């Protein structure tokens, strides 16, 4: 295969690769081009490696991360961030108040702080009674977070709306509208059934850049559209055709409004 026999060309081998990769400075690049014009062997090598580069560089050679991995990494970052909120004092608190400082030093020794923080948050979400609407929102939020933490974001993982919709048949007693909003920047990730507010509901999963949007759907009498913000998550609620829709996400309120508009169209 190797056609370089000439010693001078062999010495140029590294230069040849530097030339292909655009890593030579102007002077060497020019020199090598002149050599190429005179040396068919090197010219053939360059052509061969350039063709190879195109084959390896095709986009489908690269592996793609799974949605499960994406969700887990997002959840891990959220855990780390909330551990950071809980475990690290603000700079102005760090120097004075020796008792608090000791407490922080104590906490910092424990590696299970992230777990504790997450656990505490979950207990709060589940245990704390609130007014009616608050409880539902808390439950939806807990469900959203749970869907990111376990490796179970979707039961049916596909971006094909015609696969997701029939999948719900027989699992729930209503037919949720499944639309693919990839063209609006919200690709469909999949669906699953979930349990919220004492009943089985449909959950559709969409993605906005790195963010996951869970849409919970169940039959309900029409009500007013509302939006809410809880613990940094945005929630939106609307109803349509006898179904109630709740979207929960860590994407911005702005994105959520766009999503709602696209979903409702």
């Amino acid at each position, binding site marked *: *295969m*190797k056609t370089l026999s000439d010693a001078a060309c062999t010495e140029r*081998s*590294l230069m*040849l*690769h*530097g030339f292909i*990769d655009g*890593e030579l400075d102007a002077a060497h690049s020019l020199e090598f081009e002149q050599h190429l014009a005179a040396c068919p062997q090197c010219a053939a090598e360059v052509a*061969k*490696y350039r063709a*190879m*580069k195109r*084959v*390896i*560089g*095709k986009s*489908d*050679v*690269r*592996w*793609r*991360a*799974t949605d499960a*991995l*994406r969700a*887990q*990494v*997002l959840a*891990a*970052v*959220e855990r*780390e*961030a909330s551990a*950071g*909120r809980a475990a*690290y*004092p*603000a*700079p102005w*608190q*760090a120097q004075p108040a020796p008792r608090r400082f000791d407490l922080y030093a104590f906490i910092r020794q424990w590696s299970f702080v992230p777990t504790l923080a997450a656990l505490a948050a979950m207990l709060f979400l589940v245990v704390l009674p609130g007014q009616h609407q608050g409880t539902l929102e808390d439950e939806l939020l807990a469900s959203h977070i749970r869907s990111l933490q376990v490796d179970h974001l979707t039961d049916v*993982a*596909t*971006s*094909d709306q015609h696969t997701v919709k029939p999948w719900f048949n027989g699992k729930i007693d209503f037919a949720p509208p499944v639309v693919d909003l990839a063209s609006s920047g919200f690709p469909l990730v999949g669906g699953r059934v979930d349990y919220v507010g004492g009943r089985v509901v449909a959950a559709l999963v969409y993605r906005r*850049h*790195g*963010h996951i949007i869970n849409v919970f759907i169940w039959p309900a009498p029409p009500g007013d559209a509302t939006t809410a913000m809880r613990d*940094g998550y945005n929630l939106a609620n609307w109803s349509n055709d006898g179904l109630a829709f709740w979207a929960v996400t860590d994407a911005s309120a702005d994105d959520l409004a766009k999503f709602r508009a696209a979903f409702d169209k």
Partner: protein
Amino acid sequence: MSKVESRLFASSTSRQETITGPAVDELAQRFRQSVLPELDAAYSFARFLCKDGDAAHDIVQDAFVKAFRAYGGFKGGDVRAWVFAIVRNCYRDWMMAKRRVTRFEVTSIHEDDESPLDAIASEADTPETSLLRKTEAEAVRTVLMALPRPLREILVLREIEDLSYRDIAEITTLPIGTVMSRLARARREFAKSWSSDPAEARA
């Protein structure tokens, strides 16, 4: 530790100064915006290193937690190169752990790489691609996976991720000269297997 590496990892030691209560949210937001988009690239690199989908999954998750902890001290520069350097470190940790385990099991202590089992993809990438089909991309992956790890990683970083010699030298902590000679060797080896691969005769 090379100068470059210390630039990349200066951050990890200074975590407690850099992450504080109120700043964490802002930091997490910036991290999601600028580092998370590299998740595919990180996963791909990890998988080409360890040749195993599940292991790559764990390595990348580990790497992103470490990256987030170190992110407060990240001084800028190429985010992808920075993430790759962390992924590669996590891969090395994984290798060490694996060696410790395999020592108590049968035979194959002797090398990181070449177990035929590793070549089998362990998870479907997406439902749509799980259909069995031998594409040119898969042929490329197969040839890449058969190369020794030091050559494979250089080729992946250069041809798939399109990184400069300097970035590759930083990630692999090799001198640039070594990067260049390995790249030349890697390309020769790839060309040799590619032209003898029946899949290519078909193309």
